[in-house]
């Protein structure tokens, strides 16, 4: 009897352990299946279009907007920046190959530094390595550069690699995942509450988008912002709307969140920049 109980407890622990520490690939398959099952009429690659993949009404308005995209100026400004040499004579193309068409390489795990490197972080590190001041992370010049580089990279596959033999990488992934599922703020909401079970529902006048595809289209020109902004700006806004304090853009928390969230969309294509309401 005692043996039986011990065995039972061991099994329960194994199952519990599995549930919490499932490997990233098992997570990804379950994650994507949740959304393709919930929205069976949405073609898989349409999840890249955020809310417009499921909101027929606003989709029409959006298609019209896309004919004269509001992010075009940002792409041009970003190209200018990209092609303008730094004071030391070097330029962004010395850091980023392929005319900056490198979106598909980010975010990635840097095993030596033991941290997640995002495109925006890499842009600022390129500047600093060349004696330039870093840019502010949420909007303005960095969003323009990111818009240009994303535009040049359109069609590249989302293919975040998590080295499963690297416990530090797995821990970073696990923290990003935990962040996504934890409730926060005075309103006591987790990301998944709104963008998982809540996706397709309306809050006030807005429909909530599925999380599958969330990281593909950045940076985004948002009408509400009247400007182009980075995904960490959006993370901050989503934290604050449940009345939680937001975290520092490009701080560890949001980079690991981006790592997790982008991994969940592996297989889709990067299609930024995009327009949103």
């Amino acid at each position, binding site marked *: 009897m005692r043996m039986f109980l011990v065995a039972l407890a061991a099994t329960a622990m194994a199952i519990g352990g599995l549930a919490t520490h499932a490997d990233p690939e098992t997570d990804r398959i379950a994650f994507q299946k949740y959304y393709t099952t919930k929205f069976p009429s949405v073609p898989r690659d349409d999840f890249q279009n955020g809310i417009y993949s499921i909101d027929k009404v606003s989709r029409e308005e959006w298609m019209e907007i896309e004919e004269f995209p509001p992010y075009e100026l940002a792409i041009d400004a970003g190209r200018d920046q990209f092609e303008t040499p730094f004071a030391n004579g070097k330029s962004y193309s010395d850091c980023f190959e392929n005319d900056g068409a490198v979106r598909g390489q980010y975010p990635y795990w840097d095993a030596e530094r033991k941290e997640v490197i995002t495109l925006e972080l890499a842009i600022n590190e390129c500047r600093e390595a060349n004696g330039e001041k870093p840019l502010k992370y949420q909007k303005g010049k960095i969003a323009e550069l990111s818009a240009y580089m994303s535009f040049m990279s359109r069609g590249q596959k989302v293919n975040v690699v998590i080295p499963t033999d690297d416990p530090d990488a797995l821990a970073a992934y696990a923290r990003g995942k935990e962040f996504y599922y934890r409730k926060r*703020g005075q309103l006591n909401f987790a990301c998944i509450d709104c963008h998982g079970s809540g996706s397709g529902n309306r809050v006030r006048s807005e429909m909530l988008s599925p999380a599958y595809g969330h990281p593909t289209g950045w940076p985004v020109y948002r009408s509400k912002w009247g400007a182009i902004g980075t995904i960490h700006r959006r993370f901050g806004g989503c934290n*604050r709307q449940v009345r939680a*304090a937001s975290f520092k853009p490009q701080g560890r928390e949001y980079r690991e969140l981006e790592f997790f969230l982008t991994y969940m969309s592996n297989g889709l294509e990067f299609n930024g920049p995009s327009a949103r309401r």
Partner: protein
Amino acid sequence: MLKKLISLPIAAAFLVSCASVSSNDDFNAAWEAADAKRKEAAAVGYEWRDTKKFLKKAKAEHEAGNTEAAMKLVAKAHEEAEDGIAQHAREAELWASRVLK
């Protein structure tokens, strides 16, 4: 009688200044305690959006002499910080139940 009339305002002034010294200390202590709690919540990633704002407002109210309003704001900030810390602890296990499977 005259003496009494003169001493009354003096006594009153004395009382008021005493009260304000002690309420100043009370306020500062309460404010510091609330801010320490807020930092404790932030350290586990669970500071709420408006806690800092309440503390800032509390200082302004206190400086304007609105002691009661100031203390109310401090109490509110303190409570939010405690709620955030409790929420963090509660979520330690709950979050896993939401993972898409």
